[in-house]
């Protein structure tokens, strides 16, 4: 099984300079680039494997949205926690989860992060602070808020980051969770990954009022709204917000406008979308945009990095396909300690 290249957790994150993206040092730009192309390569391989019938169940990929996961997580240390949603592969990879064990999980094989019990929608890696994807829209909001509250109680320096989509802003937990975080001045960053759609419905057709930032402000949570396809803007805004949070300033929100290239699930062609919109969305690729910046600064290794990512993911995919299924008896493990059943 190929070894997964995890991005090194950036212990003390270097503060980014919001205005001058040129101020980023080249290593960090490379880090961001590598994370994004690894996510892209992961998602493309997963999509392909799903089409090939090797990944069972529903699959939600985040192609086009890589800038948000990468730009946020580059600012986190391993001790920081994240919660994610149904479209969480990118968040997990950016937080340092191993692509190898993720692929095994997607394939439902032994050695997967959840031993094959979770699949795509439930990937978690507690060892790197990834507290799990979630199959319920908004499900991660109260969990992140509680994690932040627990961390504060334990006098930890770590903080919590909560990724959710635009669709989640219409469920009750959004109001409750943000009010709660502001009330107890909790160290949590809410990240609204706004791709404009929720399943098969354009979010603006089911959302009233001036938008997520106004909602958050009305609940006492300030923040920044940025172009989520500009990974440097994401990085810079996150750094600013985290600085405030780590200084005890309470919760913040990052609203990142982005675009999802594919349909809702791997089997959804999203034929209802305006082809021009789709083309425009794809033209605004976060990876291509960073590549342009890097090229301007003289980077020559981009193709190699992308190729390495593709090779890496292909090898994880192949390894997953070759991996054994979990022992059937493990279906009975990890329900509960007391009162567990063992029969079939």
């Amino acid at each position, binding site marked *: 099984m190929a070894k997964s290249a995890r991005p090194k957790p950036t212990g003390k994150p270097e503060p980014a300079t919001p205005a001058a993206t040129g101020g980023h040092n080249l290593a960090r730009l490379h880090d961001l680039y590598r994370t994004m192309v690894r996510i892209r390569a992961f998602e493309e391989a997963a999509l392909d494997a799903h089409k090939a019938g090797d990944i069972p169940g*529903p699959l939600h990929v985040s192609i086009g949205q890589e800038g948000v996961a990468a730009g946020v997580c580059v600012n986190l240390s391993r001790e920081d926690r994240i919660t994610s949603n149904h479209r969480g592969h990118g968040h997990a990879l950016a937080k340092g989860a191993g692509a190898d064990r993720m692929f095994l999980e997607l394939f439902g094989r032994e050695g997967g992060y959840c031993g094959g019990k979770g699949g795509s929608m439930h990937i978690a890696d507690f060892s790197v602070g990834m507290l799990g994807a979630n199959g319920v829209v908004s499900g991660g909001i109260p969990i992140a808020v509680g994690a932040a509250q627990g961390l504060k109680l334990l006098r930890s320096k770590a903080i919590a980051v909560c990724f959710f989509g635009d669709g989640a802003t219409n469920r009750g937990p959004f109001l409750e969770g943000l009010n709660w975080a502001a009330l107890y001045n909790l160290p949590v960053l809410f990240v609204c990954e706004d791709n404009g759609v929720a399943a*098969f419905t354009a979010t603006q057709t089911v959302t009233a009022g001036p938008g997520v930032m106004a909602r958050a402000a009305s609940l006492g949570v300030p923040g920044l709204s940025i172009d989520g396809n500009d990974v440097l803007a994401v990085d810079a805004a996150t750094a600013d917000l985290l600085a405030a949070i780590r200084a005890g300033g309470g919760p913040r929100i990052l609203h990142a406008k982005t675009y999802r290239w594919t349909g809702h699930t791997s089997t959804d062609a999203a034929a209802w979308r305006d082809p021009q919109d789709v083309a425009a969305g794809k033209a605004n690729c976060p990876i291509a945009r960073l590549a342009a910046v890097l090229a301007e600064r003289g980077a020559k290794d981009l193709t190699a990095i992308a190729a390495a990512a593709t090779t890496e993911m292909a090898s994880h995919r192949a390894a997953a396909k070759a991996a054994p299924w979990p022992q059937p008896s493990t279906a009975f493990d990890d329900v509960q300690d007391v009162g567990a059943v063992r029969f079939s």
Partner: protein
Amino acid sequence: MTSKITAKPATIETTLNEAGRLAALQEMRRDPRVWVLGEDVARGGLWGQYKGFLEEFGPERVVSTPISESTIMGAGLGAALVGTRPIIEMRIFDFVMCAMDELVNQIAKIRYMFGGQARPAVVVRMPHGMWRNSAAQHSQMLESWFVHLPGVIVVAPSSVEDEAGLLVSAIRSDDPVLFFDPKDLWPATGTMTAGEIAPIPFGRARTLREGRDLTIVTWSAIVPKVIEAGVTLAQSGVDAEILDLRTLWPWDEAAVLASVRKTKRLLVVHEAVEVGGFGAEIVARVIDQLGPANILVAKRLGAPRLPIPFSPALENQIRVTTDKIVAAAKAAVMG
């Protein structure tokens, strides 16, 4: 799949999904007070159960909603209180957990609490059950919970004809009806009478097979497997009577009792977790009504008390399968 007229003019062959679509369509044409609300319904719904509805009935009667389950459920109730008849589409049963106050504390109790003033004539459609490796949060079966909840009717069809006829009854009912579409059986095909879909009354089981050796009581998505098991059993000389309950509250106690009186052996088969499932109620009631002395065996076969795992290797392990049904039935007949 679109329904197609078969040779016999009186019936059509179609899918369970389409049967439900036709039933809702018929009722929305019949009664302008009927409307549907839920996520993505204007696009036909997650499962295509409402395909073409927007075009025919417009956005006021085919309401695509925000992801706001509490309000989907609660607004449906409110709209019923002023005289409309909403079909509340919950997409996947598990999400009903986001709307339980509205369902349990409001819809189920409002008529009683208000001394009969309120008539919450809603249908709550909640496609449920294990379905292509969707893991713990998209596969639950908790239908037995609602049998324990006063104020509601609980429907769990398994066939094309029942999906249609019971949905018509549900939409016409003045009581709130919890309608568990068997989502794994959406593409299952079958025949139904062509033309007007007649309502099927609640509380009547369907006898799928007559037999003398034991009574198998079952419902919802597991039914095709039970039928299959019945054939296998017959081949090995076990003559099983199979009853599909179709509705769990009210349930056809008389039919079950009559059958068990004859066979003296009862096996309840359901896809849900065995512990605390509706099978327990059936066994307890049969024992209560017939007395232990008049019964040789009363057993249940359900899933072990586990969340649903994702991997096919694990899901298959805990699923109720045809083999397990055959084995349990044989054991019951030997016992």
